[in-house]
């Protein structure tokens, strides 16, 4: 069954409007309009260089760190353009967290990895409770509850990635961006992350960039397909329910990509 399209009552979580992104003179992304539905998992797929990670990073202003990068258009979050001069990018990144390709826990204890963000934000509640609750949300608690003082680096890759997700959750974000979160993981750890994403989507909005089409098909509610235009700028070709994209894509370019006939 198709996921219901958005309407006025079901407000968006974040929205890109006429988004253009440049690295110096090179246009990396052109005219992207993409509305992300709240409490859903949206996958962005496409060949290498199609601008999908660039768009993902634009959603929490991570591109600010890239020299010569320039963003035109708007990213609307709570009806406000996050690129407006009066917006605090740090605050945006607190509300819109990110999980990266390679698990990157701090070289500290499991406990400290989770507590760190909350502490920075001046969290005054019971830290033990927050750590437990967050590790439970990240489906990691049962595996680490007796080893909270152990170094995070002693965990397996899949556990480290769930710890990074826990670390992102500890600051109570609304949206979680995931950039190839399973590409360094084995298949079982990958499926655990996908189950976790499904669980988290009850309370969070998730946007995931993935090279793994089966992962997008398995784990997401909506899928956006990006490709490169002739001048190598990334463009969005098609956006729809994951069901529709993987069974009845409308655009031939989408069809060619997901059936493996691209290139």
């Amino acid at each position, binding site marked *: 069954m198709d996921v219901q399209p958005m309407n006025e009552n079901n407000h968006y979580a974040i929205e890109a409007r006429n988004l253009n992104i440049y690295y110096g003179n090179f246009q990396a992304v052109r005219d992207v309009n993409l509305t992300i539905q709240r409490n859903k998992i949206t996958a962005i797929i496409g060949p290498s260089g199609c601008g999908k990670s660039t768009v993902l990073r634009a959603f929490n202003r991570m591109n600010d760190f890239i020299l010569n990068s320039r963003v035109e258009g708007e990213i609307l979050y709570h009806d406000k353009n996050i690129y407006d001069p009066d917006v605090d990018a740090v605050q945006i990144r607190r509300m819109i967290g990110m999980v990266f390709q390679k698990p990157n826990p701090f070289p500290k204890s499991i406990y400290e990895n989770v507590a760190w963000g909350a502490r920075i934000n001046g969290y005054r509640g019971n830290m033990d409770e927050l750590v437990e609750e967050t590790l439970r949300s990240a489906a990691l608690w049962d595996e680490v509850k007796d080893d909270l003082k152990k170094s995070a680096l002693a965990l397996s890759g899949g556990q480290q990635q769930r710890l990074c997700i826990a670390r992102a959750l500890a600051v109570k974000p609304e949206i979680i961006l995931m950039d190839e979160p399973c590409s360094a993981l084995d298949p079982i750890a990958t499926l655990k992350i996908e189950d976790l994403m499904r669980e988290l989507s009850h309370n969070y909005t998730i946007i995931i960039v993935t090279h793994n089409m089966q992962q997008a098909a398995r784990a997401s509610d909506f899928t956006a397909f990006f490709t490169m235009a002739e001048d190598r700028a990334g463009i969005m070709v098609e956006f729809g329910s994951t069901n529709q994209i993987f*069974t009845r894509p409308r655009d031939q370019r989408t069809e060619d990509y997901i059936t493996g006939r691209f290139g």
Partner: protein
Amino acid sequence: MPRDTLIRQINQIQDEILILGSMVEQATLSAVQALKNRDTQLAHDIFEQDQVINEKRFAIENAIITLMATQQPMARDLRGMTAMLEVNTELERMGDYAKGIAKVVTRLGEGEVVIPIQEIEKMAEIAVSMLHRALGAFISENSSQALAIPKEDDQVDELFNQAYRKIIEAMIANPNLIDHTNLMLWVIHNLERLADRVTNICERTVFSATGELFEIDGMDEDDANV
């Protein structure tokens, strides 16, 4: 182009489906021939051939499932494979209709009966021709052809009605032969259903080509006669 292996494997299964289709066509025509000539030996051959059809059906089904499991088809490939599963099943059922007619031949033996053979032969001819072209349209994903073929079912239905009247008249004229005459209703019913099932193949062709899943009109309205 990538996916050459997948394309080659799909083509192989399509070939097998065409072979299965021609086995069913042959079985249908042979069954009518056996009825016309009261040839019980030919009827027994059709029983044996039906075993081969059933085995081939399972072999094709296994090949499709293996392909799905190993190649993770998407979009057009996925639709094509699920449609092949469906068409494969339809063909096996059509084979059963031919077998049903062969069974009538053995039941009749040498017994006296009125056979509306003209209508029956014509029904079989049209149904087999529809099936043949429907499979061609299926393999070439020609949805406009697939949408046109089911309309020809009207001719089969018309012949069914004519044969039906003749059979009823024969029953009234010779009530003591009603046991045998009743078997003729089976024959025409099987041929009529076989033509109906061609429509299902056409529906899967449209789905495979376009992703649209709907019933093509123009079938089943004369089922009430049976």
